[in-house]
């Protein structure tokens, strides 16, 4: 043990790209990456509010920017990420919720996940119906 710690250089396996080694890890990283999309959407909406507060011309500029092909492409990506977030959020929900017992039986993981997905479908239909009702 007389050697300085730096004299011994044991092999340490690199952690670079660790998440590409296993599809399970890749799915985990993809799930975490959806947060970038959630952040991007929050930023898009915040910029929209700032432009709205600046007046009609500024708002129309923001609206024109939303119609550009790049903005549409971005929103298609954001939509895909949001869908994956919704799917994965309820997939991990059985692990994040405390155990729920109904009639002495534990609520199964599949039931929790499917209830969550059903809630997203219902909420999406409700929101689209609201937008349709509000359109005129």
């Amino acid at each position, binding site marked *: 043990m007389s050697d300085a710690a730096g004299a011994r250089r044991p092999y340490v396996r690199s*952690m*670079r790209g660790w*998440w590409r080694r296993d599809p399970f890890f890749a799915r985990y*990283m993809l799930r*975490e*990456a959806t*947060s*970038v999309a*959630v*952040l991007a*959407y*929050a*930023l*898009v*909406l*915040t910029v929209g*509010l*700032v432009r*709205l*507060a600046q007046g*009609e011309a500024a*708002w*129309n500029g923001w*609206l024109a920017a*939303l*119609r550009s092909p790049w*903005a*549409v492409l*971005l*929103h*298609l990506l*954001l*939509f895909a990420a*949001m*869908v994956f*977030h*919704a799917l994965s*959020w*309820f997939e991990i929900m059985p692990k*994040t919720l405390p155990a729920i017992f109904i009639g002495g039986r534990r609520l199964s993981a599949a039931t929790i996940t499917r209830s*969550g997905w059903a*809630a*997203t479908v219902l*909420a*999406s239909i409700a*929101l*689209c119906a609201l*937008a*349709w009702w*509000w*359109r*005129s």
Partner: protein
Amino acid sequence: MKRSNAPVFWVLFGAGGMLAALFGPALVLISGIAAPLGLGLPPGALSYARVLALARHGWSKGLLFIVIALFAWHAMHRIFHSLHDLGIRTGTFAQLGCYGGALVITVVSAVSLLSLGF
């Protein structure tokens, strides 16, 4: 023992994540694709007068703020905890950067909404 502030951030993360899981896909579809392109919705769906009315009304003003702020806190908390997975050392600096970013979005959206009046 000093009380941890972590539970507050986890609650914001959970609330924002739930909101995004329930309403995120439809919100992006409506505000980012259907309304700007006039697909299924008339092109004037996001006209200045209509969105101004939406942002001035008490309920919708509050909902807009909750969506933006909780999305930001959810995302920043998750990004902060993912830095480690990407091999980036995290400390007070990274934490301040992440939560500071969420705070900036919260304040900017709140100020904009309040400046629009009621």
